[in-house]
């Protein structure tokens, strides 16, 4: 099951703050609900995990991330993530993300992702894949924007003192587990909203 996504999300912060989040793999990972970096192998290789909860069942994906391009001038990140769970599902994603300047000193996060899912998730969730990926990325972008905004705010307030506290990264509340039931409910709401939105 392959899904290709091209998305643009507004970031309520400038390019520098955005890039600070985008270029920090630990921070970037935690923008995704339930995801975290578990080990830094070297500067471009990481191990990570994603926990997905569906009711009482928890699926844990474990995998690797490889940074292919990290270009501070073009503010572009290209990475390859691969993972599998023990229940017979696996996924890979090649992501290219780029920050471009927008109005009001804000910026835009442009993403191109090629996601391949195999196994049980692909068998049962095929029809939902695009909407699910969409929703995950929307949540991701929201947290990303919050983090960048917080970082920019901290940097501004800390101006003159010379250091932005790393603690501000923790400012947004990020779920430790990706709650699939709540998520599916959000998906259904979005489906109906789109449906009626279109008719109008």
């Amino acid at each position, binding site marked *: *099951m*392959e899904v290709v996504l091209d998305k643009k999300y507004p970031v309520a912060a400038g390019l520098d703050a955005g890039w600070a989040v985008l270029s920090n793999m630990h921070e970037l990972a935690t923008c995704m609900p339930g995801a975290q970096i578990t080990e830094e192998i070297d500067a471009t290789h990481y191990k990570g995990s994603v926990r997905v909860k569906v009711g009482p069942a928890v699926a844990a994906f474990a995998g690797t991330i490889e940074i292919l391009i990290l270009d501070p001038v073009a503010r572009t990140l290209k990475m390859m993530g691969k993972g599998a769970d023990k229940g017979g599902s696996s996924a890979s994603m090649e992501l290219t993300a780029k920050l471009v300047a927008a109005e009001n000193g804000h910026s835009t996060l442009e993403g191109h992702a090629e996601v391949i899912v*195999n196994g049980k998730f692909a068998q049962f969730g095929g029809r939902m894949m695009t909407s699910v990926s969409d929703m995950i990325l929307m949540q991701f972008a929201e947290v990303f924007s919050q983090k960048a905004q917080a970082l920019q705010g901290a940097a501004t307030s800390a101006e003159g003192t010379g250091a932005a506290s790393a603690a501000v990264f923790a400012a947004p509340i990020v779920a430790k587990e990706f709650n699939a039931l709540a998520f599916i409910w959000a998906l259904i709401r979005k489906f109906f909203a789109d449906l009626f939105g279109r008719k109008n």
Partner: protein
Amino acid sequence: MNAPMSDREKALMGMGESRLRKEDARFIQGKGNYVDDIKLPNMVFMDIVRSPVAHARIKRINKEEALKIPGVLAVLTAEDLKPLKLHWMPTLAGDVQAVLADEKVHFQMQEVAVVIAEDRYAAADGVEAVEVEYEELQAVVDPFEALKPGAPVLREDLAGKTDGAHGKRYHHNHIFTWDAGDKEATDAAFANAAVTVKQDMFYPRVHPCPLETCGAVASFDPVRGELTTWLTSQAPHIVRTVVSMLSGIPESKVRIISPDIGGGFGNKVPIYPGYVCAIVASIVLGRPVKWIEDRIENISSTGFARDYHMTGELAATADGKILALRTNVIADHGAFDACADPTKFPAGMFHICSGSYDIPAAYCKVDGVYTNKAPGGVAYRCSFRVTEAVYLVERMVDVLAQKLNMDKAEIRAKNFIKREQFPYTSAFGFEYDSGDYQTALDKVLKAVDYKGLRAEQEVKRADPNCPTLMGIGLVTFTEVVGAGPSKICDILGVGMFDSCEIRVHPTGSAIARMGTISQGQGHQTTYAQIIATELGISSEVIQVEEGDTHTAPYGLGTYGSRSTPVAGAAIAMAARKIHAKAKKIAAHLLEVSEADLEWEIDRFKLRGNDDKFKTMKDIAWAAYNQPPPGLEPGLEAVHYYDPPNFTFPFGAYLCVVDIDKGTGDTKIRRFYALDDCGTRINPMIIEGQIHGGLTEGFAVAMGQLLSFDKQGNIQGNTLMDYFLPTAVETPKWETDYTVTPSPHHPLGAKGVAESPHVGSIPTFTSAMVDAFAHLGVTHFNMPHTSYRVWQQLKAVGIAI
């Protein structure tokens, strides 16, 4: 004593009577006895570890965590089966199939390991705990991609083998090329024809999806060295032979029992890895082992049907007389060639594709191809590949009619094999036994007021504001069933005869044991009716037993509509042996010559004398207690029937659809099905069979599909996605019949269960395409779901 003849006839409840099904009493009370109802002392349970990916190398399998789970007794992998040489097994098609994946997995949901545990729950937990490490390889799901020069090698075990079971393999993913007919004559006819048409069509992969999934209870008795296995099998004797050959246990110590079977439709013909593993596990553990697959496993890994990419061509005169037919097929057989066909026919009876038409020259070619999909290629409620063949020719005749601007009924009538041409030898060499196609077609056209329907369609087509599209589908099909004559038909070398053993007891009741096995066909009801009419014994006192290889005579089982054409004939022939002996006994009792006796319903009587007679009941008693001197006592017979030919049931079907231009939603307004299955044994059961076949045809045409993504993930292997119509979706069926008996069958019967499936599917497509025909559309592929039809509406620019 001398009841009126009509009363005596009625009392028999013999052939032609709508006798109520004897099976239903137990089924509707929940008293059926299916494989999963079998519970043995000390029984353990098996579950299967399956591959999550379609194509990969197995790097490592770790059983340790699974073995730690309380209740788990054993985990078996290919490595464990290797010393027994059971990690691979032969398929019915001359290929081999991995029982448990040996170094590589070839399709998603392939069997990788089995877990045996004290209870079903522990077995499932064990499956979760087995760790398998895969190195993923590029999956190939498209047979055309598979045949490209640089395509990945799917079957490394066949590396370097250019000779397959059916001739040369020209590519590492190629299985066989099979052809029939006269290529040169056909090419010549095309070169000189005034009109030719060509159409590509895809008959998608579907699954029979019987209500009861597959399963087994294997019980090996280590003291006696005997193996008893209850199995969901449509052919228990063949299973016994194969199990004996594979295990080395003498066939006399292998007992296969097919108890009540909850639907088969071809899905329960093959021998599956689960059966083999359950048997091995029982031998290893010395305990009975039960394995029952779930729905997802059934749809994903057991015998699928169809998956034929077909190109059809017709050559004709300018006024619509067909001169030649040419077809080319790429057949996707999945990872192993486990197609269930008679051994010499890797594309089954696909060469019935000249249909009901007198076509002078014809040629067909089928290439089988490996892909990373589940193996199979079973006959889903049809004789081997006949559904594909009938779909092809009926679509092509429509396409030709459209090109010539001729009516569908007119072009068919013009090309029919005429009644006086039977027996008719087709360009492919089949000898059609009997038929009367024009009478059948005329009856249908009259019943539905065909002209009126066409007039209504004209009006609707002319009205741009009409919210619906109206389509009329018409099909006049011929099936080939009753496989088959053993000179050409065998399975693993065993000729495709069938058998019956009848024993009449001293008090005049009887038992018949058969080589077939009912999966819902109502054999217990109809077989008894045949005996009732042949022997004058009431069907109410005739027991019919099937499915236990320890008691039943050897037979090839029930599929391909073969029970009535082959086993039904065996019944008649066995009964006639008893009839002949009974006549000798009657002559002895009446002290007259056999020549002076005549048979009348339930008795032999002195010719012209109603008062001097002996009923079959009298004769049965005498057969045991006062047999004529020199005649051995008893009244029983066995007959193994090797049919001289196939039978050729036919029908004419018409369907009217109304398609909503806004949504693509399709209403089946009318479906009129006329079937001719020769002599009719039980009209009520025929009606039921036709309703069932039409409903499964509706399912295939309008919704069923096994699709795969590029990585080989199967999409839609649950009943949430896979379409099984219920009473809510199913249209109303109108049925009709004509009777053209088979001249070579002892009863004149041809078989009926599959005709409605074979015939209805192209009828639905014919109707759907007909709705778009005035817009220049000649064909679109199944399934005709609302979404796909809506896309079609969009494509021609008339969606509203």
